[in-house]
């Protein structure tokens, strides 16, 4: 239990003691989000985000499709729209669709969830509209395959082997199908760029794809490409929050080390602040 105050009374309401640190952390995140969102609304150029290498890989993949006259296959993961990785993927899809439209390249987007398919259709339609060629948009290229995981995988494999896309963009949340998709993509001789925050699937993508966006690079890419104030402020807020986490971890490691060599015995009290009870 945090030693400094057992409970905080707020006009009759009581915060449970072990949750005080978690509550303060949530408040800190809200404050950071609000601060950076306000800042970027006032001055859109205020927040700098470095260009990550994954964006070059995506653009190279799209360029390859244009040169070879073959389509792009964009797989937005297998999760529903409320998943943050799917949201990030949809935003990248919008930009990829715009680029594809500009270069007259076809884009296929097979989806596992019907609602994701309708959002994907909207993003691609908007991309073609932004490129000035709305008439080139083919709604039929955005398809719902199946909501059964491996039936969807088999369907996407079929598209890869029949349509022979020059580039596969596997961006979103994936599970066991990740290796099957990427190996089939390799067999179809496509350049493959993958991106996921699903830690268990990263090794498969790294082994089988040409480039992999790891974890937050997916979110950073969506923020960089869309320049959406919400995403940029989101990125900045999480980066600064991570700095706080790093500082706390370094402090905790130092205190535990001092404790273990007998120089200071307060490490337990510090650790108690972070125990969820």
């Amino acid at each position, binding site marked *: 239990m945090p030693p400094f105050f057992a409970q905080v009374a707020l006009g009759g309401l009581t915060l*449970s003691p072990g949750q005080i640190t978690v509550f303060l952390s949530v408040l800190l995140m809200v404050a950071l*989000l609000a601060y950076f969102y306000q800042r970027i609304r006032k001055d859109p150029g205020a927040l700098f985000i470095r260009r990550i290498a994954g964006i070059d890989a995506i653009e190279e993949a799209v360029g390859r499709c244009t040169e070879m006259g073959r389509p792009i296959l964009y797989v937005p993961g297998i999760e529903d729209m409320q998943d943050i990785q799917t949201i990030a993927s949809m935003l990248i899809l919008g930009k990829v669709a715009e680029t594809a439209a500009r270069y007259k390249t076809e884009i296929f987007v097979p989806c596992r969830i019907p609602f994701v398919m309708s959002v994907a259709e909207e993003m691609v339609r908007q991309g073609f509209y932004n490129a000035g060629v709305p008439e080139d948009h083919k709604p039929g290229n955005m398809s719902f395959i199946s909501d059964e995981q491996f039936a969807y995988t088999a369907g996407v494999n079929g598209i890869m082997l029949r349509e022979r896309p020059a580039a596969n963009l596997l961006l979103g949340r994936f599970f066991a199908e990740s290796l099957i998709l990427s190996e089939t993509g390799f067999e179809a001789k496509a350049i493959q760029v993958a991106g996921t925050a699903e830690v268990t699937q990263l090794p498969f993508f790294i082994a089988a794809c040409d480039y992999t966006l790891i974890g*937050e690079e997916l979110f950073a890419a969506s923020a960089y490409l869309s320049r959406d104030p919400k995403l940029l402020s989101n990125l900045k807020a999480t980066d600064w929050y991570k700095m706080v986490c790093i500082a706390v971890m370094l402090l905790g490691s130092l205190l535990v080390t001092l404790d273990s060599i007998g120089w200071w015995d307060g490490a337990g009290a510090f650790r108690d602040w972070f125990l969820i009870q």
Partner: protein
Amino acid sequence: MKKEIPLLIAFLLGTWMILENFLTGIPWVGPMKEVITNGGIVIMAFTYVLGIYSIVSVNVARIRRGQDVVPKVALLAALALMVALGFWRGHEEGTPFNWLYLNLYVPLQATMFSLLAFYIASAAFRAFRARSLEATLLLVCAILVMVGRIPVGEKIWASFPQVSDWIMNIPNLAGKRAIMIGAALGAISTGLRVILGLERSYLGGE
């Protein structure tokens, strides 16, 4: 109001779900949480109805357009069959539904999953080349962990399992924790954006 009402619902319920986690000593918090949780479960059950409607409508549309007719008809027939059998004879052991599940669905799913064993072999052969220092480290660690996890590894060298465990519990754990923290922060910030109405892509079109 088409977008305002969902945003308001998201804000109220999201804020409540955060606050109830921290509040104790209020008598009506528990029952209200129960009502909201059970309400959410009921709503999720309805998504199955929506899911069936989506599958049927999308596939019927494709059949009408003459695209992939045979697999789509097979899909709809299988769906109808399983639903009919489930309603007619139930899904307990010994029923036709259960028989189809155990003798068709289980082997098919297990087969698709087992493809991974073959694909990882070909991917490893192709990708695990010592082209750079990082690639060499990846390669060596992969081999040590693979050998350490099998009985033969113990026979070759008794300390292989400990080496494998050290790799999994120290450097792998450090990397996993870092990525997990980053992904969790992303989830927190996105959740807060949804609750505060800043993120509206789940409503479609924005």
